[in-house]
């Protein structure tokens, strides 16, 4: 339902009603920000990339075809923006920046549970940051961005079968990294 609305909104933007882009921004700013945050581990870089994506959408609105779906089209632009930014700034994703290390609030706020939950999240984030970039990208797209495998295949310009294999390999490697980090912490 939302995909169809997004498509109509983007067609209106393409045809000159650029004010409709504000609605698309309100809908997609947060998921897009979190997509970049999981890739770059940097809040300022993610804010800049979201802005860059919407600037590009406005600039290249005429390239939006009737046969497109908005979200996969937007993530293709997002992917290009991230690749270009990383190349330009030689952005190295090794350790998450302190701004992303804030402890999230536990749904059950007992002190012990909250501490354990926070440690688990911090460990998962560190593991995700250590995952090779191509695997992190496919894993984030499939696990967090609410996209179908066919859409991810279009974003990454590959076969659907290849996406499935990559997701499986990524989650397997991430689990290994997570276990290694958990082992280091325990010892």
């Amino acid at each position, binding site marked *: 339902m939302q995909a169809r609305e997004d498509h109509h909104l983007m067609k209106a933007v393409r045809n000159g009603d*650029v*004010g409709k*882009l*504000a609605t698309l*921004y309100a809908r997609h*700013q*947060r*998921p897009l*920000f*979190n997509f970049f*945050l*999981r890739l770059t581990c940097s*809040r300022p870089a*993610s*804010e800049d990339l*979201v*802005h860059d994506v*919407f*600037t*590009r959408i*406005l600039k*290249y609105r*005429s*390239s939006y*075809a009737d046969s497109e779906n908005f979200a996969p089209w937007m993530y*293709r*632009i997002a992917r*290009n923006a991230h690749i*270009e930014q990383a190349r*330009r700034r030689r952005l190295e994703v090794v350790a998450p920046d302190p701004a*992303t290390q804030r402890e*999230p609030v536990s749904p059950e706020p007992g002190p012990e549970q909250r501490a354990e*939950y926070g440690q*688990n*999240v911090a460990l*998962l*984030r560190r593991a*995700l940051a250590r995952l090779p970039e191509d695997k992190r990208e496919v894993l984030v797209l*499939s*696990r*967090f961005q609410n996209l179908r*495998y066919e859409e991810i295949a*279009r974003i990454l*310009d590959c076969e659907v*079968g290849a996406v*499935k*294999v990559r*997701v*499986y390999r990524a*989650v*397997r490697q*991430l*689990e290994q990294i*997570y276990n290694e980090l958990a082992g280091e912490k325990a010892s």
Partner: protein
Amino acid sequence: MNCEQASEYLPEYWDSALDEIPRRELEAHLQTCAACREEAARLKAFWFRLGAIPDEAPDAASRGRFDAMLADYRRAVRPSRVDRILENWWPRRPAVQVACAMGMLAIGLLAGHALTVDVQGRGEVARLRDEIASTRQLVALSLLRESSASERLKGVDWSDRLPHPEPQVVNALLETVNYDDTVDVRLAAVDALRRLSSEADVQSRMASALPVQDSPLVQIALIDALSDSRSGQARDAIRRVAELRNVDPLVREHARSVMERKQ
């Protein structure tokens, strides 16, 4: 189903998104293969554990930044006040438009005839204009060779202001498109060359640059610049990119949509 095929279906299986036939085949395999069963259960738990990474809210200020960008864009595409006044003032009937034009022409001729012009003074003004134009060309060239990207952007801007850029400036712009490290500078150079895209040499070198560019944004800008021209060379270059497999899908689609519009 073997172990390798089974692993391919696991993430969809965990999300309950697997179609019925592969789901049954996968479950049959898991019943017979203890290793896959153990791994599937372990990774499924980890897959759901990943959901603990919470979403974060972007800074509230970023919305203001977006609104400002959108307002700037709208201002840039809106006709200026002078345009709107002229639009209202200028008569709509063609006969009246012709009469107005003829009247203005007559006034211009009479005024020109009436004014006494000092020929020597006019010569000096022309020489000064030439010198200023030549200085501008030199400034543009020297800025284009700077190491700082912002200085090179200024160089592109200077070259864009020249009414008739010399061949050296055009050549420097084309080299910027091909070799500059910064995408923004390359994009600005393509924009500056756009008004010259009807010239055969410029067109030929833009067409050569199109398939070898590593930035999809620059490729799209080159396609737009080439699409201004009606020559067969420009059309062929766009068509070749539309058929290339190793270019970015966005670029390919843009090239296709340009080709369709031109047909």
